[in-house]
């Protein structure tokens, strides 16, 4: 197993671990240990660069996955920390005190996924959208095509085919 994982597994209750590449490790962690793990990684393991913070909507499982991706430049190592949140009333503690730049990511997540980060600077303000009236758009249950059809006037004449269906008809006219 990955040497980094060997060092971490005694300290933190890591769940699912994926070694994607020799230099990229993903670990899953209960949410209450996030801050201590990030501090450990930043200050002791040298993962001092927050590459990104984003979310994935696993709507089937009723969960949001938050991914904190950290990078250790001297060792050329990346680690992604996965946190699972319940999809309804999703809130998470803010890490803007560890990395000031995380505030921007948290603003975006709040707007695009509806995940709240209480205490993060400016998290209440509009970041990208303005006057948004529907579900947060990056959630899986928000259908962008439906929204676009309902709200915008389309110019007639554009024929849309479901590409898979269309190509099936083109390639296999007699059925698969």
């Amino acid at each position, binding site marked *: 197993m990955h040497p980094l994982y060997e060092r971490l597994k005694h300290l933190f209750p890591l769940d699912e671990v994926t070694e994607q590449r020799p230099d990229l490790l993903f670990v899953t962690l209960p949410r209450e240990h996030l801050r201590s793990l990030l501090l450990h990684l930043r200050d002791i393991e040298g993962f001092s660069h927050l590459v990104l913070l984003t979310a994935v909507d696993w709507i089937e499982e009723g969960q949001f996955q938050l991914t904190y991706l950290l990078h250790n430049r001297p060792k050329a190592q990346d680690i992604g920390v996965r946190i699972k949140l319940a999809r309804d009333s999703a809130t998470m503690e803010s890490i803007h005190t560890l990395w000031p730049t995380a505030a921007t990511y948290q603003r975006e997540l709040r707007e695009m996924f509806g995940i709240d980060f209480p205490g993060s600077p400016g998290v209440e303000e509009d970041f990208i959208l303005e006057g948004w009236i529907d579900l947060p758009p990056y959630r899986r249950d928000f259908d962008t095509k439906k929204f*676009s059809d309902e*709200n*915008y006037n*389309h110019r007639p004449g554009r024929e*849309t085919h479901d590409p898979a269906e269309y190509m099936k008809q083109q390639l296999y006219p007699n059925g698969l």
Partner: protein
Amino acid sequence: MQSKDFSKAELQKRTVTGPDGVEFEVDPMRDYFCEAPPTVMPPAYIKIVEDLFNWARAESIWILGFGTGCGAIEMRPLMTPRFDAYRYGIQWRPTPRQANLFVISGYLSVKTLKRAIRSYEQMQNPKYVVGLGSCTINGGMYWDSYNTIKRLDDYLPVDLYITGCMPRPEALLQGFMDLKKVIRAGNAEGANRYAENFAWYKANQKQIIHDWDMPEYSW
């Protein structure tokens, strides 16, 4: 969901104390925005004067320097040695007051559309709009996006579309040449069309821009 309240604190009516200690009332909605709707401006009465003006308008096209989308990237080549649009009397103005031509360079997100309309309304009659790229015509690549408009001519009076994704500078030059013909023939009356159908345009704009800090009346 439509009833969401977008009123902002800085736009509320309030009493402020000036630096000299005098108190006065501020109503930003009324004080900061012009309330007069645009009016139709007829062409000059004498034909030869109008023709002269149309010639000058065609020969001196001042573009508003507002790159709304990716099309803005081809603007710099357009103004530099290889394509050099200055040869045709085309130049950039940084302020909408002095510009005549608004090039919508690509898709408009709703947030930009609001600014684009404001900029357009600040321009002086006669003014022209050129839509650049497929995305202004029918949404192009972003036909199913939740944040971009699909037909520009519902919101602003478009004089000319230039197709492509993205249009090459040659296409832009050709488009400007065509626009010149339209102007010289006296057919570029987009501003008057906008004034005549103001209610229709506003209704279209209102349909998608939900957060609009303008007085209710010009809505």
